[in-house]
């Protein structure tokens, strides 16, 4: 077979637009996912049994169903309940809801791994459960939460390619558009793989730097 170099050079800027959308979706979804996941994680550590049950049920549902179905639920099923998003925001919402469940587990695990003596000492000086979480346990858990959160962020970026099925014009969808016109699957899918690979590499590198910057004690 011969490689069509012309289409590759022509595609690179076109795919660049897709990269921008992929980054936008991923950035928004990771911010929302982190925020919601942090709240859910703290809820799963609260003294309230019903809160813990709700979070556990949520995490269980997200883990037990395919992301693709979750995307369809947000984009096609929620409108039936009167909640309507365009493709872009449906994608952001689906990815956020999905990653929040995993972030919640990371938060719960990270905080749970802090030595018991820490919360006892804080309890002994009269701090309340919420204060202990916020001032004593969470700050100590940050550093060890970075690697699993990086993994989650990487999954999120890769998973964003699934949004092509609801026509979010992100990287994968942009590539498919070119393929459907020029029929060059080998060149374009290879190029897509490279694009994703570079994106992920940059993310891991950034997270490695962040991890080194966080204090040890």
């Amino acid at each position: 077979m011969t490689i069509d170099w012309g289409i590759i050079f022509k595609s690179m800027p076109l795919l660049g637009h897709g990269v921008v959308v992929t980054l936008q979706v991923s950035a928004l979804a990771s911010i929302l996912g982190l925020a919601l996941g942090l709240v859910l994680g703290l809820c799963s550590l609260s003294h309230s049994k019903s809160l813990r049950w709700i979070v556990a049920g949520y995490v269980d549902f997200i883990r037990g169903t395919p992301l693709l179905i979750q995307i369809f639920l947000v984009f096609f099923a929620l409108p039936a309940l009167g909640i309507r998003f365009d493709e872009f925001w449906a994608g952001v919402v689906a990815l956020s809801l999905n990653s929040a469940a995993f972030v919640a587990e990371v938060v719960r695990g990270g905080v749970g791994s802090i030595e018991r003596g820490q919360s006892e000492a804080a309890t002994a000086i009269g701090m309340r459960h919420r204060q202990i979480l916020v001032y004593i346990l969470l700050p100590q858990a940050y550093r060890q939460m970075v690697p699993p959160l990086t993994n989650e962020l990487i999954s999120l970026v890769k998973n964003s390619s699934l949004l092509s099925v609801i026509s979010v014009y992100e990287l994968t969808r942009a590539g498919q558009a070119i393929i459907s016109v020029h029929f060059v699957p080998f060149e374009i899918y290879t190029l897509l793989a490279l694009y994703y690979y570079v994106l992920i590499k940059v993310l891991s590198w950034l997270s490695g730097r962040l991890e080194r910057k966080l204090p040890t004690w």
Partner: protein
Amino acid sequence: MVTPVIQVQDLSKSFGDNSVLHRVSMDVATGETVVIIGASGSGKTTFLRCLNRLEEPSAGTVRLDGIPVVNIGSEKQIADQRSQFGFVFQRFNLFPHFSALDNVAIGPEKVRGMSKSDASALALAELKRVHMSDHAMKRPVQLSGGQQQRVAIARALAMKPKVMLFDEPTSALDPELVQEVLDVMKELANGGMTMVVVTHEMNFAREVADRVIYMENGKIVEEGPPEILFREPKSHGAQRFLRHLTHE
């Protein structure tokens, strides 16, 4: 008659089938230093932890200044009541992400609602009391065990507790660091602080304690002034325990 600071009545604690404390009763008077001794597993630590409800007793009552220490009411009430007890742990349990100063200041600031600057000023004064003001800005990891334990004592003192509870405060220390902690505790006792100390440091007990309590199998077997209890222990268990210690 003056009400004792602490009144313990029939305090029991069991973990499942395992009964660790069995109807322990005792009083602690204001300014008194009580040292609790006994073999490991005798229930000393559990007893101490039941006083400030780090461990929930199975039965019995603890009164602080005549007021029952209970586990009902709002979380804030319970926490406030608990903060009337200063507690010093065997393993210090300093907060590693805070400086020595912030370790001491966090309680006054977050629990007592003091302003940050007031809390820091108080923390510095308490660090001075344990001779640690020169190290105020250091993180726990930069301090020796003895220094960490003194910061932990300052952290408890900053809450202005009515009584200080020490759970084997020198057991996790290298031998050469034990004395500096005991010296601080002695100064506190001499300053009129009410203290309950679980320890194996018999010299400290002899010098500082007003009363020594010997525990065995979750019960108080014998108690008395140190000069009497150490010289002529009446119970078989205390005789054996003390003989064992002096042979070490």
